[in-house]
């Protein structure tokens, strides 16, 4: 059952084979009566019922109930893991959107520099652009997408589970990036900006990893996330060795990594639905 069921669940509004659902809830009361309470009276069919007939029918009925019970168990399993599936889908989507957003921001930035002349290279304009991009990313990620999971939060639990240390880390990192950008671009050492950016990204992604480790079912993402962090950290070496290539490496590793991580999360969410029920 679970394969068909799970396939129909993927991003569809027509999400649940409802006959199965109605069947499951009524099957539950039937099963309880049969297995836990007094046995259900089984019709013997025709008037010539024999004890053999009776036992055959009872065996069939028991077998049927056992099958129904197993299907009910599959439903309960699906209910148990669905919140993690939704949260992984949302996280994956956020990463893909962030990747897309940064790509778009980079294109807009290049456009501004090329066409706006002196205004494009003005540090205040660059900073304003960066702050604008962060605000958009915050609005999309936390105000539009994160609320999608609100039904699966425990009642009374704080909506925003981000720890103070995590928030502070990102505030300090953003300030660091801004100050570094001003200083390095101002002093003509633009090629040093990508390695500095990677140091900030390594710390930031490690904070993300530690933060997500506090939540349930984070193990599925651990491998992908750790690989991404390692890639960012290692990319600093070629950036320092080949400064002219540093921007290309930055875009390749960071953008590619963010997209890759987003897609990995989306795939692992679907895999979670398809994995067999636990014993």
């Amino acid at each position: 059952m679970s394969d068909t069921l799970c396939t129909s669940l993927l991003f569809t509004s027509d999400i649940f084979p409802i006959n199965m659902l109605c069947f499951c809830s009524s099957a539950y009361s039937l099963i309880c009566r049969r297995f836990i309470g007094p046995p259900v009276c089984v019709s013997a069919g025709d008037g010539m019922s024999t004890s053999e007939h009776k036992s055959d029918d009872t065996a069939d009925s028991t077998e049927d109930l056992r099958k129904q019970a197993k299907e009910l168990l599959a439903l309960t399993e699906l209910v148990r893991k669905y919140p993690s599936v939704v949260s992984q889908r949302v996280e994956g989507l956020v990463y893909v959107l962030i990747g897309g957003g940064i790509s778009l921001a980079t294109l807009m930035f290049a456009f501004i520099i090329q066409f706006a002349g002196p205004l494009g290279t003005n540090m205040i304009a660059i900073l304003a652009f960066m702050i604008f991009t962060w605000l958009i990313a915050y609005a999309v990620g936390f105000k539009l997408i994160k609320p999608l999971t609100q039904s699966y939060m425990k009642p009374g639990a704080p909506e925003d589970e981000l720890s103070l240390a995590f928030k502070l880390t990102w505030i300090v990192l953003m300030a660091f990036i801004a100050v570094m950008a001003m200083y390095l671009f101002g002093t003509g050492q633009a090629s040093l900006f990508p390695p500095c950016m990677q140091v900030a990204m390594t710390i930031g992604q490690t904070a993300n990893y530690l933060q997500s480790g506090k939540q349930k079912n984070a193990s599925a993402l651990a491998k992908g996330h750790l690989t991404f962090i390692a890639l960012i950290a290692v990319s600093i070496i070629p950036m320092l060795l080949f400064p002219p290539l540093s921007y290309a490496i930055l875009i390749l590793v960071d953008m590619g990594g963010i997209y890759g991580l987003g897609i990995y999360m989306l795939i692992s969410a679907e895999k979670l639905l398809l994995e067999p029920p636990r014993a």
Partner: protein
Amino acid sequence: MEEDREAFVPARLSILVYLYFTQSTKFTSLQKKLGLTSGNLSSHLRKLEALRYVRISKYFVELKPTTVVSITQEGAQRVQTQLARMRELVGAAIEEQETVRASADNVSEVP
């Protein structure tokens, strides 16, 4: 327990589990999916709303009044705990049946 009995009759459980997966849906779609009459569905929804497991909102879509039903956090939490309870109960019953069956097979194999 009284609350459980009221919320988890088969039709209401179906409504809650369906909403658990979709989060919110139109009244008409819910009616079609569950094969309930509108009066029947309304009465179940009113009961679930009174228990604060669902939220009912009305909107105008293309000048037609549309009723949208959404599950609340309490509702989603109740579905999870109730189905976990079902899982334990049914799992234990299956296990017990299989043990009985295995021992019966063993007895029949003995000459």
